[in-house]
């Protein structure tokens, strides 16, 4: 049994090659088209987002306070040293004034005055 096959005409090979090259080109064009569409879509999205942001109503500025509070400087904290606990100072109490009670009697000429310390 001889396995002898005839040669194929060159046109048979040409057709295969042409078909492959055409398919590769078509796929390249398709890929390029897909990229172009994607890029355009991305640009449109960006533009739309930009427009949307620009058209938002401006936020009114915060009202300016006319009352000025004195600035209180924050107490400096020594970072390196542990906090020192100071003893609370005893507040000085002003010396109490003597309390005077005035009692009036039926007799307008007599008035009793009490002084309480």
């Amino acid at each position: 049994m001889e396995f002898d096959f005839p040669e194929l005409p060159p046109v048979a090979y040409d057709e295969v090659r042409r078909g492959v090259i055409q398919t590769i080109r078509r796929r390249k064009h398709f890929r390029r088209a897909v990229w172009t569409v994607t890029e355009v879509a991305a640009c449109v999205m960006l533009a739309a987002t930009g427009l949307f942001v620009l058209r938002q109503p401006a936020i009114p500025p915060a009202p300016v306070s006319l009352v000025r509070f004195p600035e209180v400087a924050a107490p400096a904290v020594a970072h390196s040293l542990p906090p020192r606990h100071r003893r609370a100072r005893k507040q000085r109490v002003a010396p109490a004034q003597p309390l005077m009670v005035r009692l009036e009697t039926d007799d307008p000429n007599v008035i009793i005055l009490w002084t309480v310390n």
Partner: protein
Amino acid sequence: MTISAREPDILARATLGDQSAFEELMRMHERQVLLTSLRLLGRLEDAQDAAQETFLKLYRNLRVFGSITEIRPWLYRVTVNVCRDLAKKRGLLAHETPEFDIAVEDGRVEQIGLEQQRVLLAEALRYLPDKERAAIVLREIEGLDTNEVAVILGSSAATVRTQVSTGRARLRGILTRLARRKHGV
């Protein structure tokens, strides 16, 4: 400059997207791919479709190859697989041949002309089971080494030997029947 000296350059250029280099690469392997496809499928149109699919797979996988020598066995393997898929998809292969007769009837087929023998052989190949047909085509027609065929088909050398032997016997039976039916020998 010899072709073999240019080959690595062709692969490198084709990998970088040079279309003319890829065309040259196709020219180098087109005979192998198209004839194997034709022997596996039996019809030129189907074989051309299979060859195109095989080369497109090659184009997509060009970066896989370290050297050009790796392409040939890879192409055989892909060709066999593509042909198998295409045959299944299109229902090309007719295994329902009437009464497979493995009995050898020497002398009958040889009585018809060479051209008729070729036609009959091409037709008879279509009736072989997938693996036997692939083994016969690669081993007997393409002339590959048994070990190479085993690697391409993903089986052992012993299995390939068995497939070739059984395939030959089966083929002879089919040929005899076809010759008797068509040419009355």
